[in-house]
């Protein structure tokens, strides 16, 4: 029995537009991002109200305030979070805040990269480790944050390198001021996980905002902003740093252009390419539908 020849529908131009190979998009994005990084064109970075609020939450605090920074990012989001942390640290040092950082293991391993960049700021402002700033190794989630704000000494008594709190005037001062929340004026967190935002709002804003006026700001990935924005609209968060774009805005507001601003051209161009592909695919989809609809229906 002879095989029936397969009927192959000829691909039209609209089919081809709909099925542009994904690999071509990746190649184009990677190439264009690389080229524009070497030859930047300086596309504008508009400053949003959310970025201004984030900046002002820190900027309007008096000198000597206590900022607690929880950085929970790993290697995958260095490009997003590292510039944000550097910008916040530079701003805090310029405002002569007392800085307490805390995190789990990976951010501690990544911190030397940050320290290298903020060292000139620390030296210029005569910051002394243990007296003006400290870094604590505290793994754990929401229950631990609740304990930290209540009494940090009950959670841990040494810094990330094992130095006892008793030898650190900053931590001794915090203990002498009573419950730890008396020494928390603003909390800045960085995360790649949505549950951190919810937990921070519950443990910092809801519990202590009315009691002590503590402010809460955070840098989260762009993808998390739509879900976290209701907290900002409701006043649970004083500001949100919108991923790498937010870090670039912060650098502009601070007047200290850094790593985040360097990659904004890459982001803009890559987005334009994705948008162009999206438009081309849609043109193919609608034109195919239109051409089908316009074919007269015949019988037999």
């Amino acid at each position, binding site marked *: 029995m002879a095989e029936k020849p397969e009927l192959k529908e000829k691909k039209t131009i609209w089919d081809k537009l709909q099925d542009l190979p994904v690999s071509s998009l990746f190649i184009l994005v990677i190439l264009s991002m690389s080229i524009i990084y070497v030859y930047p064109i300086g596309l504008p970075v508009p400053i949003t109200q959310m970025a201004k609020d984030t900046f002002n939450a820190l900027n309007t605090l008096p000198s000597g305030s206590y900022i607690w920074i929880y950085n929970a990012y790993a290697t995958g989001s260095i490009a997003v979070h590292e510039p944000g942390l550097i910008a916040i640290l530079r701003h805090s040092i310029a405002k002569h805040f007392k800085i307490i950082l805390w995190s789990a293991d990976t951010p501690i*391993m990544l911190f030397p990269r940050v320290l290298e960049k903020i060292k000139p700021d620390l030296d210029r402002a005569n910051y002394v480790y243990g007296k003006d700033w400290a870094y604590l*190794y505290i793994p754990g989630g929401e229950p631990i944050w609740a304990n930290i704000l209540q009494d940090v000494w*009950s959670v841990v008594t040494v810094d990330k390198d094992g130095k006892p709190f008793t030898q650190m005037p900053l931590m001794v001062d915090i203990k002498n001021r009573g419950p730890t929340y008396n020494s928390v004026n603003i909390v800045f967190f960085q995360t790649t996980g949505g549950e951190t935002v919810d937990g921070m709002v519950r*443990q910092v804003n809801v519990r202590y905002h009315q009691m002590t006026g503590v402010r809460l700001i955070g840098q989260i990935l762009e*993808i998390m902003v739509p879900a976290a924005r209701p907290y900002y609209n409701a006043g649970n968060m004083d500001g949100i740093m919108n991923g*790498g774009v937010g870090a670039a805005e912060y650098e502009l507001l601070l007047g200290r252009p850094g790593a985040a601003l360097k990659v904004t051209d890459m982001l803009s161009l890559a987005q334009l390419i994705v948008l162009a592909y999206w438009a081309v695919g849609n043109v193919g989809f609608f034109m195919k539908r239109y051409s089908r609809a316009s074919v007269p229906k015949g019988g037999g």
Partner: protein
Amino acid sequence: MEFIDIVGVWIAAILTIGITSISFKETFFSRWSEVTYLAMGTLTSIVWFPTDLRRYVLERVAPGGAWIPLGPRGGYLFVIFAVLIGIIAYGRYSRKYFWLYRYYLSLSVGTGIGVAMRGFIGANFLDQIRANFLSLVVPGDAYTSFNNTVMCVVVLSSLIYFIFTFKAIENPTVRRISIIGRYFMMIAFGVTFGTGITTRINQYAGRIEFLIIEWLGIKPIA
């Protein structure tokens, strides 16, 4: 740059290219890069394990060599209890002792819920309702008036979409409102998808930066 740093940069560059290649085709190279990355993450946790054990167990059970049964920081009885709870978590890997793992799970979930519930009503319920009581007309500020009106329409229509209980939902007008709510939700999902692309591009920008500056040694033109 020292020799060891150069080796580190090359390994990082090879792994970056390997993991990127998964976007084009899954190969042995891409799988190897992916598994190596995961192994490094696991290794980091293992390396930090002795530090955790020393700081959160040994130094609490006997700080400076002195045993404290019950002190301001709990003392060793609490720590030993916590360690026991930690050990029974490994019951998960045994059919015989799996029931022990359930105690660990119920305790940790219970603690988490207990702590979270304290702020949940305020943050996720009351404050959100309060934030949606907006003036539809703000004198002299057309932009805010428009925004507030849109917000009210979105909130109400989206809420109506999720009402399945009442007969009223069969009313054609209510159905139309719920369809509007569905469209607004689709716009919101679209925004999330769009920001997802931004996030991934942003994260990859860091790797391109690394490849250009540290691996290839090309300086960007300022």
